[in-house]
């Protein structure tokens, strides 16, 4: 698929990505379902519209850099990268297998195109900030942009707020962060486990430009990223409200799907839902 897609094409791509996620997780037999499904629209927008990149030349020195901070959501990144042409989609089925480049949590040295290694939470934002600092103050290169995605449960980590303070102090304006605000973490809802609100107020007080969007509305995602690039005096955070398990009825809003994969029957049901847009259409697309 080409780099620039229309909004409708992007939405279709995100749907394909969701079917890939279900198939990968079923084949792997372990892994996280809810977060990756919820992030499919944001990742599709990033890799197919927002970021400058060359899938055939992952180390291209003009590329924008992307840091996944909540590494357990990497199935969505693998699926989007494969759809974007970084590697053959067949390789998606090797997720979490011995010898695979698609590790259970992302490892930079295993797969070209990954900028970092993550899994233990809270450190990806700092790495993105380190790149943004370098571009802005040492290399004086305003052409490249740095993106990061964090979870919301991940915001319990102190390392996140160290990075938030750092980026605020240095006004790292080439840094845009998407927070996957899906309100769940392993032990329950975020507001039960460790309340995050007033989340927007917290980031504002750290010196960030804050936007809140519907993380499943393709136009909103793209507009927010454009707005972030227009803010030249501060780092930008986009609090993207998402539905965990988005697109699969029995997974949506249920925190039990945070760290679980679908079994064969569940995957079949999920794929049918995704391919028929919940029964709205009868066409059954080809599987991966």
């Amino acid at each position, binding site marked *: 698929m080409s780099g620039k897609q229309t909004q409708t094409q992007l939405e279709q791509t995100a749907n394909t990505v969701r079917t890939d996620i279900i198939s990968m997780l079923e084949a792997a037999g372990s892994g996280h379902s809810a977060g990756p499904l919820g992030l499919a629209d944001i990742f599709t927008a990033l890799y197919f519209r927002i970021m400058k990149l060359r899938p055939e030349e992952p180390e291209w020195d003009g590329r924008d850099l992307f840091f996944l901070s909540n590494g357990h959501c990497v199935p969505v990144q693998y699926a989007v990268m494969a759809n974007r042409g970084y590697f053959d989609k067949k390789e998606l089925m090797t997720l979490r297998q011995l010898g695979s480049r698609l590790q259970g949590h992302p490892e*930079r*040295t295993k797969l070209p195109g990954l900028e970092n290694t993550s899994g*233990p939470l809270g450190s990806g934002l*700092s*790495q993105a900030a*380190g*790149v943004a600092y370098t*571009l802005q103050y040492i290399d004086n290169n305003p052409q490249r942009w740095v993106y990061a995605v964090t979870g919301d449960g991940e915001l319990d980590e102190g390392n996140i707020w160290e990075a938030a303070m*750092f980026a605020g102090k240095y006004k790292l304006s080439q840094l845009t962060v998407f927070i996957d605000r899906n309100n769940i973490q392993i032990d329950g809802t975020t507001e039960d486990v460790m309340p995050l609100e007033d989340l927007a107020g917290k980031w504002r007080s750290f010196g960030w430009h804050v936007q809140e969007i519907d993380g499943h509305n393709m136009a909103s995602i793209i507009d927010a990223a454009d707005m972030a690039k227009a803010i030249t005096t501060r780092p930008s955070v986009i609090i993207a409200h998402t539905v965990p398990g988005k697109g699969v009825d029995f997974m949506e809003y249920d925190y039990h799907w945070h760290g679980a994969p679908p079994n064969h029957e569940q995957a079949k049901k999920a794929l049918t839902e995704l391919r028929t847009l919940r029964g709205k259409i009868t066409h059954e697309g080809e599987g991966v």
Partner: protein
Amino acid sequence: MSDYTLNPHYASDDVSREPTRAGFGRGLKTAGEADERVVALCADLTESTQMHHFRDVFPSRFVEIGVAEQNLVTVASGMARVGKIPFTSSYAAFSPGRNWEQIRTTICLNEQPVKVVGSHAGVSVGPDGATHQMLEDIALMRVLPHMVVVNPGDAIEAEKATRAMARDDKNPGYLRLAREKTPIFSTEQSPFEIGPAYVLHAGDDVTIASTGPMTAQALIAAKQLREQYNINAEVVHVPTIKPLDVDTIVASVGKTGRIVTVEEAQAAAGFGGLIAETLADHLPAPQLRIGMDDRFGESGSPDELLTHFGFDAEAIAGRVRTFIDKRPQYKKGF
């Protein structure tokens, strides 16, 4: 005999003294002049860790992080991703004491050439007390894949070690430094590379392998043993703890049949533990580990503490004598 050039005054009371961190400060500035990829980050201890020499010359390549050691090493990891060779500094008790997981994941597993510089290691930190006397850092760092661990013996060697680590744009590194002035036993002409251990004084009766500024005490202890007790100890200085120069250690123990290890750190899992593991694989031999014996330090003057915990030359010499009285040389039949 050894061909290592020792400072001829190493055993004198008026030997010149300087802290290893001072050598680091000079070395980092020189490394910055040699390679513009070298950048420096500090967690609110810039003068203490001697990074101000670099900061004053290269202000745009110095990053003040504040008191945030987790952010210190992870920001550095990001900078390395776009081609920099970052040196991060704090007290060893805080970095790598507090941020070990970030070092593991974002630097070692992520294979970025970030250098973690831990200053004020050991009990010789003095009156600040046990919280600030880092003793577990060698164990924490040497167990990490890809990590290079260097513990220089004096300020001259620390300067050379810093420059050598800056030339390595592939591997992560840990550089252990001390707060206090310690004797200069090497010279500008003495060899230093990352990797080799150096036989400073040849001997047949026992190997004394030491790391860091403890080597100055080990040399004096060996001199006392030689002159007062006719015990000829071979002194092996081990500035690079990882990768360990196995050949030099094994060759020495093959000659002497027994070994005493000396470090200003926990003897368990640290340098002494490393030598025990290595000899178990290659040449099992009687060993005495001189180090902290599974306890913490406490407040006091540096000299008082070194004596109190048995790290001065007299204590080392005494323990070596007791050891060789009790443990015969195992020269054959390994």
